[in-house]
């Protein structure tokens, strides 16, 4: 860390920011396509039904209606919409269009027309007859013998994971170590509580969008608002039965993803329209469709049972997680796995531990990837559980966590036992500054002056709460990233990366890594991401992988370029490579004092002697996933008369290794924290009796504005991860994990009521306070 960097650790300006602020950089729907067909999906109003009949004729009779797609005229190939590596760990349980609809909002058909208005009108004219089935809404009842079965025996998991559609079981994880009975016998008290994390919508401000067309060579171009361009290409080729070589996926600017665009939902449909009609096609969801018909955060019910000795030693911990996968099993196994694998290693000293996880189908909206990815749900439970434990034993929570969390040089048996869809990888934690994070939080929130003080002003009482978390940096032994670079004769470099900047700033961060290796200014980097024709493979933007894995690939690639540059310089200076030193955008021979700049070196390589293109490709595949750590503390004020809770302040202190760009790292934490606050306070899916989401608008599903937020303090703690590129770990997801449990803990601190389910609406808090008063 003592090393001085030229680009790493600098708050460089995001390289695409000005083009975005002036509106010139384009998103999918900003590309104009001539003679474009417009698509409108038709959805089921019923939670569970057979489609008896689809009569397209009234729609097709309309002027300007070109086609109606349904199960009748589209390929029937079982697949998963989860944009994961191949073979996907999610069950193959979806068709593009099916004869059965499994949630109110499931797709039935799609109208294709000459204008959006015609498509919309025509969509209302398609007549669909249903035969209703009894629906299943309660995940706790999903595995009952008499529960309705959502999926048939034809569904399967391509990786051969535990899966049983006859029991509505989309995924199962069952593992542990030690002896729970022994642990229970050694315990002085047993704490057994159940916590529920709820549905949530990603709310990327850019709705899901895709445009497709044939280019002048007859290749199918897919402009996609996606986190996973290469997975889009692979999945479209398979489900549309179209040659992969004829597909080019281009990711322009993306208006936020948060996991919601790790789902290959729309691309195959628009592609089919272009394939059928040899014309451009456009499919853009409305906000209502994003809420109702795309993907959500999986609700998870987590039961934690633990035994504790009077000194605080946990003698056993049992986690039983029931994940509501909704109608399909997208990410059902991996989110479930992460609910344990990203959470349980934090308390690595527990000798007897068991994790039972089950994902079940219900006739409700489909879960998917969502920032935090199961860890958010798991940490909601664990952090409240630790708060309960410390209160029962009268121990200080921050000090307790500091004593029991995983530390540098340590490992957890969970790492090896539980991966993403398979067993995991043994790994040791090589960087952990969680103690510092906790200390910053307690200091900034004023923990020791406020905890248990119930500071009152009129009807309002204040409380403070703390929560901690770890995440990962990519998926070890699964994720792969690659970079390609070439040098230009002015000393600039093309950096082509499959890594998918969806607004995170990864283009900038990866350019900083290359600029650091090559000792050039950031503006010497010309970044292209991502285009399946032009950039090398990368799994995409998910699992907190980009800075760590793609960053390592970029570093390796830039090092190969540097080697070639020095080789050419040695030839030019008539010396050997090992005698040369790098200087800013040039190479120096300390012996002769001569220096040659990059432009001269590249011009020599291109035009003078032994000509060749200075270029390199590198890929990276990792065997570890170093966890970043975070502590987040809040102060709340609870109105004891109305139940209204106001979050007054939130402090986040994060160990993400060396922040490549501290400003962008802060931005990731702040954005995630605010999403975490609103998930805790206002965001929820409200369903009608037949499972239809009834608050599918920003008016009724509240996400915060600038005027709604507490004071925020974000600290990026100095740290260094030995395996990371220049010491970096990930930062994208972790910040969403702790606001909800920290707020729950703070509400308890203020008014002594424990809320096991969010959002913490005034009604819920009011009822809890009243109930407690009645008990007293």
């Amino acid at each position, binding site marked *: 860390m003592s090393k001085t960097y030229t680009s790493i650790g600098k*708050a460089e*300006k*995001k390289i*695409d*920011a*000005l*083009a*975005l*602020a*002036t*509106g*010139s*950089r*384009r*998103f999918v*729907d*900003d590309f*104009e396509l001539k003679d474009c067909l417009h698509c409108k999906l038709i959805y089921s109003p019923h939670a569970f039904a057979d489609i008896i009949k689809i009569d397209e004729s009234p729609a097709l009779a309309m002027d300007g209606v070109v086609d109606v797609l349904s199960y009748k005229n589209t390929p029937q190939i079982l697949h998963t919409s989860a944009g994961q590596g191949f073979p996907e760990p999610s069950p193959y349980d979806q068709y593009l269009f099916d004869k059965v609809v499994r949630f109110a909002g499931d797709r039935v058909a799609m109208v294709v027309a000459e204008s959006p*208005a015609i498509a919309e009108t025509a969509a209302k004219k398609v007549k669909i007859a249903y035969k209703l089935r009894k629906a299943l809404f309660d995940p706790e009842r999903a595995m009952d013998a008499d529960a309705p079965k959502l999926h048939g025996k034809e569904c399967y998991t391509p990786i051969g994971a535990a899966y049983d559609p006859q029991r509505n079981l989309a995924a199962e994880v069952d593992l542990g170590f030690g002896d729970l009975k022994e642990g229970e016998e050694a315990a002085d008290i047993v704490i057994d509580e159940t916590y529920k994390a709820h549905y949530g919508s*990603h*709310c*990327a*401000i*850019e*709705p899901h969008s895709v445009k497709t067309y044939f280019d002048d060579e007859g290749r199918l171009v897919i402009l996609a608002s996606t986190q996973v361009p290469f997975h889009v290409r692979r999945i479209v080729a398979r489900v549309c039965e179209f040659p992969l070589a004829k597909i080019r996926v281009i990711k322009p*600017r*993306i*208006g*936020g993803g*948060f996991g919601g665009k790790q789902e290959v939902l729309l691309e195959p449909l628009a592609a089919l329209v272009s394939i059928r009609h040899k014309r451009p096609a456009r499919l853009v969801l*409305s*906000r209502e469709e994003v809420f109702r018909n795309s993907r959500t955060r999986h609700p998870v019910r987590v039961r934690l049972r633990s035994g504790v000795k009077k000194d605080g030693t946990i003698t056993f911990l049992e986690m039983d997680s029931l994940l509501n996968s909704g109608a399909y099993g997208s990410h059902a196994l991996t989110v479930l796995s992460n609910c344990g694998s990203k959470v349980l290693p934090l308390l690595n000293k527990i000798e007897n531990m068991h994790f039972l996880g089950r994902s079940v189908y219900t006739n409700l909206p489909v879960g998917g990837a969502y920032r935090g990815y199961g860890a958010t749900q798991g940490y909601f439970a664990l952090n409240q559980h630790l708060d309960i434990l410390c209160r029962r034993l009268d121990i200080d929570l921050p000090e307790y966590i500091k004593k029991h969390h995983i530390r540098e040089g340590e490992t957890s048996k969970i790492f090896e036992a539980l991966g993403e869809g398979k067993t995991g990888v043994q790994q040791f934690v090589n960087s952990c500054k969680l103690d510092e994070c906790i200390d910053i939080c307690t200091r900034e929130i004023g923990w020791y002056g406020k905890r248990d003080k119930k500071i009152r002003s009129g009807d309002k009482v204040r409380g403070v709460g703390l929560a901690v978390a770890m995440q990962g940096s990519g998926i070890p032994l699964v994720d792969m990233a690659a970079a390609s670079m070439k040098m230009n004769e002015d000393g600039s470099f093309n950096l082509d990366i499959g890594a998918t900047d*969806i*607004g*995170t*700033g990864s283009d900038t961060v990866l350019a900083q890594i290359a600029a650091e290796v090559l000792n050039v200014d950031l503006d010497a980097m010309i970044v292209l991401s991502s285009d399946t024709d032009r950039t090398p493979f990368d799994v995409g933007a998910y699992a907190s992988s980009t800075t760590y894995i793609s960053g390592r690939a970029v570093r390796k690639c830039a090092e190969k370029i540097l080697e070639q540059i020095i080789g050419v310089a040695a030839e030019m200076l008539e010396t050997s490579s090992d005698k040369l030193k790098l200087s800013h955008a040039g190479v120096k021979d300390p012996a002769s004092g001569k220096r040659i700049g990059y432009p001269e070196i590249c011009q020599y390589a291109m035009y003078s002697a032994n000509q060749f293109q200075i270029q390199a490709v590198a890929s990276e595949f990792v065997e570890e996933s170093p966890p970043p750590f975070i502590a987040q503390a809040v102060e709340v004020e609870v109105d004891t008369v109305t139940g209204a809770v106001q979050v007054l302040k939130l402090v986040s202190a994060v160990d993400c290794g060396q922040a490549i760009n501290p*400003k*962008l790292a*802060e*931005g990731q934490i*702040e*954005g*995630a*924290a*605010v*999403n975490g606050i609103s998930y805790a306070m206002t965001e929820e899916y409200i369903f009608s009796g037949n499972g239809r989401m009834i608050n599918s*608008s*920003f*008016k009724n599903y509240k*996400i*915060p*504005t*600038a*005027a*709604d*937020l507490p004071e*925020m303090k*974000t600290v990026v703690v100095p740290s260094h991860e030995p395996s990371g590129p220049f010491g970096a770990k990930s930062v994208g997801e972790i910040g969403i994990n702790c606001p909800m449990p920290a707020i729950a803990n703070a509400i308890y601190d203020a008014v002594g009521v424990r809320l096991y389910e969010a959002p913490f609406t005034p009604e819920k808090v009011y009822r809890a306070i009243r109930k407690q008063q009645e008990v007293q």
Partner: protein
Amino acid sequence: MKTLVTINGKSIELRFDPDETLLHTLRNHGYTEVKSGCEEGECGACLILLNGKAVNSCLIFTATLKNDNILTAAGIGTLHEPHIIQQAFVDCGAVQCGFCTPGMVIAGYALLQDNPDPSETEIRKALSGNLCRCTGYVKIVEAVQEASKRLRGEGS
């Protein structure tokens, strides 16, 4: 239908369907810096200045316009000649995905025209019609503060 308006200082004849919103008309005429995020007046991504007032263009029927003056984010400043507020967004790290940014820039610009030296609370209130899911607003508020300083000749 047709109507004549001024957009970003240029006189333009807009062609549109009778029930078309200004958001769609503008995007159909190439003003794609005006973004569509919800089409219900909640997200502010389509914010423009109409005769100097910040309005959501998704809530206005184009048919109601005649000789009106429209300013979009690209009319405030361009990539080659950015406005101070756009540069402040860049410098403060206020742009993440950038989809809400043109609307945010308009909201901030409108505020600073009326109130060159706003308090943080006034800034937060002025931006409260614009949703951002990426940033947590911290750096957006800083950017408007910074733009205010620079416009008043105090900034860096």
